[in-house]
């Protein structure tokens, strides 16, 4: 089985974010970058399937040179090799464009399964994986917490409001992985060492055979905004019984939410 895992290099979730230069830029406090937490579930699932069925796990990322760190991380967990799609043309792409770049490469690859994360933290799109699947005309299952593969039959459970939806499809397909699917392993020291020797194929736009005309309609950036400020809160004092009475009164009469 040849399994492709889509991975993204992202700022870690502790990072503080500030809007700067009148909305033209973001400033970050904290410079920790990590393999997108949801993509860890994708890599882990790929490795488990490889252990079961044999084959190969390939990690693929669109990003700058720094993204190779997340590819190394995926390889330290156990992925066999990696592909980095990197070009100034690929900076700051919207989900459709990112997915089109990925699909362009995958059209040249053989694969039985594509695994991605539920969403990429930071841009928070929850879209790139599904679009890749759609462009390659393979079945897509999103927010998956349970996956069973037998022969070429795939059964997945996805999280929806109030329960789980059961889905069936055939290989090859694309699965977006949600927390709960598995418990990602930590790379072993041996894994980290051998990851340094594994191959990352770096591919730019011209090797991929595309130029700026490849991208269709564009998203226009207008500005960054701070989240709407929360009105200053009220601390309710007094004996617990009185405080709760006061709270319920405020909720029904002032805030009008009851």
């Amino acid at each position, binding site marked *: 089985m040849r399994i492709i895992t889509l991975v993204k290099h992202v700022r870690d*979730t*502790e*990072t503080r*974010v500030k809007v700067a230069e009148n909305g033209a830029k*973001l400033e970050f406090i904290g410079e920790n970058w990590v393999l997108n937490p949801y993509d860890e579930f994708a890599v882990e699932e790929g490795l488990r399937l490889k252990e079961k069925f044999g084959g190969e796990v390939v990690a693929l990322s669109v990003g700058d040179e720094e993204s190779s760190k997340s590819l190394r991380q995926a390889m330290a967990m156990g992925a066999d090799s990696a592909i980095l799609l990197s070009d100034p043309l690929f900076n700051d792409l*919207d*989900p*459709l464009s990112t997915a089109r770049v990925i699909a362009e490469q995958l059209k040249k690859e053989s694969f039985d399964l594509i695994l991605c994360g539920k969403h990429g933290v*930071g841009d*928070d799109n*929850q*879209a790139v994986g*599904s*679009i890749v699947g*759609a462009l390659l*005309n*393979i*079945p*897509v*299952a*999103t*927010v998956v917490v349970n996956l069973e593969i037998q022969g070429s039959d795939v059964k997945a459970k996805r*999280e*929806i*409001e*109030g*329960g*789980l*939806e*059961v889905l*069936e499809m055939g290989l090859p*397909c694309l699965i977006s992985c949600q*927390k709960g699917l598995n418990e990602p392993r930590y790379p072993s020291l041996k894994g980290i060492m051998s990851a340094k020797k594994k191959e990352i194929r770096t591919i730019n736009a011209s090797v991929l055979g595309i130029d700026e005309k490849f991208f*269709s*309609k*564009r*998203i*226009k950036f*207008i500005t*960054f*905004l*701070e*989240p*709407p400020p*929360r*009105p200053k*809160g009220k*601390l*309710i004092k007094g004996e*617990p019984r009185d*405080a*709760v*009475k006061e*709270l*319920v009164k*405020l*909720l*029904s009469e002032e*805030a009008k*939410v009851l």
Partner: protein
Amino acid sequence: MKILTYFEVKDGEIKKASFETASKAAEIAEKLNGEACALFVGENISEEMAKSPSRVNIKKSYILKNESLKTFSNSIYASAISNFAKEREFDAILFPATSTGKDLAPIVSAYFDVPYISDVIKVDVENGDVTFVKPIFSGKAMKKISVEENCFVASLRVNVFPVIEKHCETLVESVEAKLDDVKSSKVTGYEKGSSELLDVAEADIIISGGRGMKGPENFEMLAEVAKLFGGAMGASRAAVDAGWVPHSHQVGQTGKVVSPSLYIACGISGAIQHLAGMSSSKVIVAINKDKDAPIFNVATYGIVGDLFEIVPLLKEEIKSLKG
């Protein structure tokens, strides 16, 4: 400018979020002298159901029908929707950002070859451009964007946009859907979650517990309050990781992002990853024994005290209020 807005039907009922999205679609269309239409997909949509967008000033409804649309299959539905949108020359398609909406919209974006903007919390028209505000970094910042030629696929966050009642006449047209030969996953079953409560992603009132709840048995008390509210029970990751509540209840960066009218946090400190999931709630109540807990920075109302004392009192008060 022609906008199509997707109406989600589950168990024979239209999801409320569809009306929220449609209200916005009607408003944009009006401002741009355009047209907003409703789209229903499936075999068992009645004419009467398809007329209900009349509530929110949508003058035309379509029902897409086809043998293959009997049960939900994301790529087949997406193919029907995008082929219809192309044929009738729609510029844009809006979805409610429900779990179905977020499943369909990106696939439609691929087939329709139009950029996708997800989980939008604000839509305006400025100088003829439709502009979107979308949270990034789990709501620690927002990004305002538009799309060339106002061509977009977007999903609108649930519970954020008001349903604007504005009655009109609605014409209904049934159309035989055109489908491409797409490979799709198919829904073959459903497993209901253990609780009879609403899901946090849908509820208008949520009461959540964290590590301060001390153990699984105490969540029973929160579930009872949630039931009185007709709402949902949420949890912090600390409570989920301890195995006290299933992950489907988790609110936050790696849980669900919610915007209810009322969010009550009990024994939750307010870590940045938790705030990421709930700080856009309209009213936030914090109950915590530590007066310096960061949750108080976002709380509309706070009570410093022992939750084991406060929550039972709250239950009593709500009970007498609801009579």
